[in-house]
């Protein structure tokens, strides 16, 4: 079956603009995770959904970041008033339930100019 997909694969935006990043998890996976990875670093946790609800959003860096998963499948990560420091690869992952192996998407490379 299809794996986790993310769109767009690359996004270039100007400082101060609003962006949305989309994640399509594996069908039937109830858990969905967003991570952010800067160059030379490991992925850093942002937010975790179980079904439609955000079970843990402790990794979101500030209130410019927000994520939704309204129907328990597709998720959108929203970043307002982007800053150059937001430039990174944003990774989405899903798993059948909480914990265990995560299945990662290819990521969205965000560049803020």
């Amino acid at each position, binding site marked *: 079956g299809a794996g*986790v997909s993310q769109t767009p694969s690359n996004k270039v935006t100007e400082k101060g603009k609003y962006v949305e990043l989309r994640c399509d998890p594996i069908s039937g996976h109830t858990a969905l*995770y967003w*991570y952010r*990875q800067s*160059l*030379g*670093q*490991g*992925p*850093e*946790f942002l937010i*975790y959904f*179980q079904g439609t609800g955000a*079970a*843990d959003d*402790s*990794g979101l860096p500030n209130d410019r970041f927000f994520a939704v998963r309204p129907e328990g499948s597709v998720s959108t990560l929203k970043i307002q008033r982007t800053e150059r420091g937001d430039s990174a*690869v944003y*990774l989405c*992952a899903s798993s059948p339930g*909480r*914990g*265990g*192996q*995560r*299945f*990662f*998407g*290819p*990521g969205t490379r965000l560049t803020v100019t």
Partner: protein
Amino acid sequence: SQQGEEDPQALSIQEGENATMNCSYKTSINNLQWYRQNSGRGLVHLILIRSNEREKHSGRLRVTLDTSKKSSSLLITASRAADTASYFCATDGRGGGADGLTFGKGTHLIIQP
């Protein structure tokens, strides 16, 4: 914050040799996972070892876990050029947030043909 720390940060070996990477962590865990990443994009799950296991094998991969030393190692035998990638350990913790999966900074492995 990142709990796992991989060692070495970079490793270059000849094709056919064995590659060993180490990971240390700080808090108690449910399990420890190893992932591979090519070209800074999506991560691929390699192996999961539970806290009550000491060793696990999968093909050319061998993972050990020493919970008393809070350390793990990943051994890749008979390396191939296609094994060139970054390798990350990730701990699935007992006491962390609902997500619980924390990545290290990774080991960049280069296999010389």
